[in-house]
């Protein structure tokens, strides 16, 4: 019987499986997996699988591998189907429709942001460097100079010697001993507000000061204390707190509350070079630098060291405090209006005043000739030295 004969051959093959070639085993596995075996072949093969672990692992491995090839084939086929479907879709018009279109500023920025950034940086750099080189960036206006004086060292020493000499002479002549000190780091001018030692000067003269001394026309120095400052008006109020200080006597000028007229003859008296200097001039504008209403503009020869000095009119009214000058316009100087000085005095808190600060209301300079006025005035004008 042919079927029987085949079976015999098969079992012979199976029995000699270890001697079989790899190809033959694979063929068997293929047939087994594809269900091409007869029931008897199948049963025998399963027994073989159980007995021989080598055959069993071959079956499993082959099954997995063939499965993977088949899946791979299915995947390729599916991809082709999907590609075919995809090719029928009008992707381009769909894309136009679905793209979120940002408004034109955003798209401009997206496409050109690097260029825009570079341009902006260059522009900012250009502006800053222009400002820097023209000096506009400095807070201090280059054309406005405060008249505080910084003293050169050599000059200092020369003066110091002079003063010491003076002091020696004085101390030998008079029993009263006044303090002789070096001329200080900065120098400005101040003037008496009352007979008991209150003095007004510029805030910029005494700002950052460790200690302040005032020196009168006779060369006597007194220690003074800053009791109040009003930086926005550039005014500071000092008080002499020195034992050797004696009452000044009635202040000869009074303080003008109203605004003075243009063209009025005015003058100042101060210590620009360490020496007392009279400066005549006239009031040229009711507003100061760049039109600020705090200051008068005056035409007066002032120099470094005049800061804080009194500005008086012909009749001996105090109308302002010398403050600064404009470098670009010859002869243009500025003085804080006396109204602001009065305002500052009013603003002093009561507990800062150890003695009463009574402003003089009597004017004893009126009617005197200029030299007479100056003679009286100079006892009330002080050199302010700052350390």
């Amino acid at each position, binding site marked *: 019987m042919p079927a029987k004969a085949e079976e015999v051959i098969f079992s012979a093959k199976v029995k000699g499986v270890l001697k079989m070639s*790899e190809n033959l085993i694979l063929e068997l596995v293929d047939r087994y997996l594809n269900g091409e075996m007869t029931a008897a072949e199948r049963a025998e093969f399963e027994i073989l699988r159980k007995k021989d672990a080598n055959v069993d692992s071959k079956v499993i491995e082959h099954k997995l591998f063939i499965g993977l090839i088949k899946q791979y084939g299915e995947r390729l086929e599916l991809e082709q189907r999907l590609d075919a479907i995809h090719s029928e879709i009008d992707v381009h018009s769909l894309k136009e429709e*679905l793209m979120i279109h940002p408004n034109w500023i955003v798209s401009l920025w997206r496409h050109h942001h690097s260029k825009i950034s570079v341009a902006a940086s260059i522009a900012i750099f250009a502006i800053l460097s222009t400002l820097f080189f023209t000096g506009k960036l400095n807070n201090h206006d280059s054309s406005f100079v405060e008249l505080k004086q910084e003293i050169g060292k050599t000059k200092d020493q020369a003066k110091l010697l002079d003063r010491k000499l003076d002091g020696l002479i004085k101390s030998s002549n008079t029993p009263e001993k006044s303090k002789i000190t070096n001329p200080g780091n900065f120098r400005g001018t101040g003037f008496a507000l009352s007979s008991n030692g209150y003095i007004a000067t510029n805030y910029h003269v005494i700002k950052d000061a460790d200690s302040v001394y005032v020196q009168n026309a006779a060369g006597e120095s007194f220690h003074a204390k800053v009791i109040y400052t009003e930086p926005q008006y550039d005014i500071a109020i000092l008080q002499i707190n020195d034992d050797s200080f004696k009452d000044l006597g009635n202040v000869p000028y009074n303080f003008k509350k109203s605004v003075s007229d243009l063209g009025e003859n005015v003058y100042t008296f101060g210590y620009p070079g360490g020496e007392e200097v009279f400066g005549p001039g006239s009031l040229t504008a009711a507003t100061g630098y760049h039109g600020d209403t705090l200051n008068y503009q005056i035409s007066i020869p002032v120099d470094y060291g005049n800061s804080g000095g009194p500005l008086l009119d012909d009749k001996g009214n105090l109308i302002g405090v010398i403050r600064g000058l404009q470098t670009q316009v010859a002869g243009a100087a500025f003085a804080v209006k006396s109204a602001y000085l009065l305002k500052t005095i009013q603003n002093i808190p009561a507990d800062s005043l150890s003695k009463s600060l009574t402003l003089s209301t009597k004017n004893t300079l009126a009617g005197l000739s200029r030299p007479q006025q100056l003679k009286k005035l100079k006892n009330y004008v002080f050199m302010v030295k700052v350390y």
Partner: protein
Amino acid sequence: MNRDLKASAPTDSEIVLGILNNSEIVLKRLYTTYFPMILQLIINNNGNEDEAKDIYQEAIIVLYNKVKSGEFELSSKLKTYIYSVCRRLWLKRLSQMNRYGGDIRDFEEYLPVDDEVEKHNDRDIQFNKMEAALQLLGEPCKTIMEDFYIHNRSMQEICERFGYTNADNAKTQKYKCLQRLKKLFFQQK
């Protein structure tokens, strides 16, 4: 079926049934229905239309295999499932290309589908290896393997195509090819 009905979105169960029945029409409707949603996601998140196509087809394959394997349960909307898979695939692709800015503009709600994407990824790696092994195998082995195992052609047909004089020669050749293919496949790391 009139045109209007055809153009409307197929229901989820229609799609699942269609995939199980190998319906070409359902596959096409599924594909065209949700492609615009994914195109929108990709092109508005640093991608182009070709990348949208890649990502979308991958997601359809994930869905297709899941349905075919009988694992798919309609616990969420198909639309959400497809969107979630594409979103996950795209995030992965973006970070591989270093194009990921840490933020993605979303158009739909989404589910966590990390496991499925991972699984899909592993299988993809196997397929890539198989593709490479087949390429290295060269002709005629490649075609013999494809014909026999992928296209399920009989040895007789293969014999005729390659002009083998008898089926035994062809068989021997086939098993030689298979051994080489296995070797090439497993040699790859």
